[in-house]
């Protein structure tokens, strides 16, 4: 009559097995709650509990493997670009900035800084891009930008050796906002040193005279009003990284 899925047991056996299993489930949930509390008590590493920071770094190591210059952000037609571009964040945009004396500082080496005017940068071939700009907050907007491909810039100014270093750092003139980006992403064909928005010079609140447009990253990396840039084998400091966000922010 009976198959092997069935058994006859005493009431006590049923009770004991049930108690034991229930106890185990209780211990399991207590463990989960304890683990959760433990996680939040861990020392912070750049604003994130250390285990979570390690996970973000591990994710970077995993997902940078699928990064390719052949993977490009989808581009759109000019008429899809919004006329009014959202302005987010004003760190590094101090009031006392004097654009007339601005020059881009490219730190090639210790005591070897290249200073370039906007006209010198504009003399390089112009590249335009209309893409879906993605903010780390979750919104996105199709916007139209123009500037010099960073890879063209590196070639023109003979920065090939420096560009072999793993990271690039960019800082605003007042040093209040700063980003660190893996140089691979900087050399992506859609990454621009940007001086135009919607076919006109960058507005002041969008980073005049020069900002970064890097479609393979969230908006936080598209630093406005670049003062200086440098290359490094170490991670340059990064404003939002210090506040608990992922360093890589790669899309």
């Amino acid at each position, binding site marked *: 009559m009976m198959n092997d899925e069935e058994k006859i047991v005493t009431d006590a056996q*049923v009770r004991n097995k049930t108690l034991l299993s229930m106890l185990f489930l209780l211990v399991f949930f207590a463990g989960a709650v304890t683990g959760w509390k433990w996680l939040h008590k861990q020392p912070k590493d750049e604003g994130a509990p250390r285990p979570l920071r390690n996970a973000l770094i591990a994710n970077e190591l995993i997902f940078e493997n699928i990064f390719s210059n052949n993977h490009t952000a989808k581009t759109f037609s000019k008429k899809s670009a919004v006329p009014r571009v959202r302005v987010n964040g004003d760190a590094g945009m101090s009031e006392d900035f004097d654009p007339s004396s601005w020059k881009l500082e490219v730190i090639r080496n210790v005591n070897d800084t290249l200073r370039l005017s906007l006209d010198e940068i504009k003399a390089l071939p112009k590249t335009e891009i209309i893409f879906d700009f993605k903010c780390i907050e979750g919104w996105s907007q199709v916007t139209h930008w123009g500037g010099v491909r960073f890879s063209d810039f590196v070639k023109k100014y003979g920065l090939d050796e420096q560009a072999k270093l793993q990271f690039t750092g960019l800082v605003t003139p007042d040093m209040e906002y700063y980003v660190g980006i893996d140089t691979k992403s900087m050399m992506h064909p859609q990454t621009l040193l940007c001086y135009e928005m919607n076919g006109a010079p960058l507005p002041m609140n969008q980073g005049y005279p020069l900002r970064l447009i890097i479609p393979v990253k969230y908006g936080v990396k598209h630093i406005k009003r670049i003062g200086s840039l440098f290359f490094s084998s170490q991670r340059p400091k990064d404003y939002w990284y210090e506040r608990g966000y992922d360093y890589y922010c790669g899309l």
Partner: protein
Amino acid sequence: MKKIIKKHPLAIRWFHWLNFPILAVMIWSGLLIYWANDVYRVGWGDKTILKFFPDTFNKALNIPYRLAEGMSLHFFFMWLFAINGILYFLYLLFSKEYKLIFPNKNSFKEAWLVLLHDLHIKKGLPPQKKYNAAQRIAYTGIIIMGFFMLLTGLAIYKPVQLYWLCAMLGGYEWARAEHFIFTILFVLFFLVHVIQVILAGWNNFRGMVTGFEVIKPSGSPGLSETNNLTETIILNDE
């Protein structure tokens, strides 16, 4: 003396109970992330019936201004959710448990009868094995939903590197909306699931903890429909 019958294998109980806290953390961290751009609502034109989420909800749960924390949690626990789900799916395939869960050719017809029965419109149920037709559809549906969560999540996580996936799901903004809608469906599934488990009673719940169910001797007083079902299982297995 009692007669017991094996119900859920140990592996399935582990996958099930592990998924509970993992999914809870995924939904919680998802709320922290979503808050930074909380644009979804139910309504038309200027009329909003339900905003996701009302300010009182966000304030009560202390959700605002925790985007960084939400992202770091989400991008850690996503691995646990994915691994647990994939192992569960592989286990179903290799243990042949899937035969008890995936709908068969009668399930879609029978699920209707189960629904009418559960709503107390109609008495009696078609014969079933471990799960009835409605459960088969629901539990298979949740596996597909979990898989879809991974896909939509990946699409908004790496929309440039996985541009083809993002395009397949209707683009970046659609993928984000889908990820959100499926989370809501997950929560609704959870609510219905808990209600059903409460209605089914202790013996059924114990099955997911201990792995066995007790079969009451037939003809004894207090014989319920659940026991009739268990009887059917035995008959079918013979």
